[in-house]
């Protein structure tokens, strides 16, 4: 499974847990639209730390980088390279 697909699956599962089963595109801004909140972003952080071994502690943190499947994938690509 590609990184993008893995991230998408994780977000789908998270939204489902919140009772939100509406479809979304890879570009859709889930935090900006209010479907995910800032605490959900932390759940995504934990997922990325555990799955890809990324350490966010040493760089400025920007919640906007966690807004869509596409932006999260881009962030993972940047930080794992």
């Amino acid at each position, binding site marked *: 499974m590609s990184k993008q697909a893995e991230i998408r699956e994780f977000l789908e599962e998270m939204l489902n*847990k919140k*009772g939100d089963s509406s479809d979304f595109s890879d570009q859709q801004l889930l935090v900006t639209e209010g479907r995910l909140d*800032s605490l959900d972003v*932390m759940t995504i*952080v934990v997922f990325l*730390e555990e799955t890809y071994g990324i350490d966010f502690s040493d760089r400025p*943190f920007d919640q*906007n980088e966690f807004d869509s499947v596409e932006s999260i994938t881009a962030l993972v690509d940047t930080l794992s390279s």
Partner: protein
Amino acid sequence: MSVTRLRIIPAIEQSPALVQLAQQTGGKALLLAVFAFGLYLHGSRWWLELVLILAAMSFWPQFRRPLLTAGTLYWLVSQHTRLKWGFLGHVFNTQGLGTTTSWYFYWLSLVAATILFCAMYYYLVRKSRGTWLYRRPVAALLAGYFILLTIASYTPLSTTQQAYLWGFLIILGHYIWFLAYSLQDRNAAPGTKFIYQLGHYQPFWGGSNTPFPKGAAYLRKIEAKNAEELAISQLKGIKLLYWAFILSLVLGIFNMVVYGRPFYNLELPAHLATPSVNDALAHTRSADPYDWYINWAVVLANFIKSMLTLSVWGHIIIATCRMAGFQALRNTRSPLRSRTIAEFWNRYYYYFKELLVEFFFYPTFLRYFKTRPRLRMFMATMAAAGLGNMLYHFFRDIHIIMDLGVLGALKAFQVYIFYGLLLGTAIGLSQLRNQNRKQSTHWFRTYVTAPVIVLGFYCISHIFGLPYPGYGLDVYFQFLMNMFNVGVV
């Protein structure tokens, strides 16, 4: 079980005909007129000035950012003559500057110094890559502010020096969280020029020391990119403004029935005459407490009033922001639908919660207790809802620091410190409890038990978070015991 939502105000932004109309010159003028009427209904004294700024932003959206900065600058100047920034005017008078200095010189020099400080600090941080300052600019800013408060409290300065130092701290305190958001945007590409960031430092659409709606990065995301998005944003703004008006009618009727306050010159011949929280606390303090059921009524009425007041206030601000072309989320979003303590915190005062999350929760979560997930979540929540919440209010209530000094103010803040700890613990536990837990599908639990527990918690704990009346924690606990008919003196 699905519940069909009843719409009191139709979803006008979903009508293609209206969206089309709102993109034409006549349609824009109509929307502005409807919005102006809504502001007038709300009793806004500045409805005309607001609508003129919004008109400029509607007809020349390509100049939205410069217009936002100009509108906010105009607001700064016009609010200054009307409100004199409250406490700043008090400092000017009590320090006896009126005889030697003009108010305008005092005010302008302080505003200029604050803007200059913000700009210099922002650029200093940007130029300091690789240093501690670059990695922790907000922590350094808050620590520096605290040090200056201590210096102002305890250093023997002349009255003029005192007036200028306190004046600077008062104005910087108004802007400190706005600057914090700018600092967070320091490495964004493409970013927003600092001069345009100043446009949403205490913007013309209103707010408090909490930035509505957050900072430059968020505004870039929610800004209408074309005529259709602007039309939808404005239609949503109008909808929210009129929803706020309906809520304000409910609030007015509530105040009339519960507190006996006149509403549109109408007074009821009989009302519940519910005392205020401050009145009930004063009675408790003087060993003459109200009956337990009256104390319950006091707490419940105060909580309902606070929710309605915050909703109306926040909706008007966000409605105006949407009219300006920024599709911001609501500040208060159906708090009564909350099923958990953490969810209520998210729904009640969204932008304050976001501030605490951005500047306290994230830094703690990302750096500490990484090997212990549950402790990590709890401590990060405590840092936000507890420490951050206390610090925000401590800095906000600068008049108490000025009166009592830093240490005296910390002591006077004991009730809020307790409130912060209580809130942080409750939200932290709520977060832990809800991790990896599916939403309950049981009707009774979803629609009765959970909301009653959540609202009950906030209803009672809310009294500890009210503006400082000068009582010690013992008075609050005595009041609580009176509510349960225990320990009545």
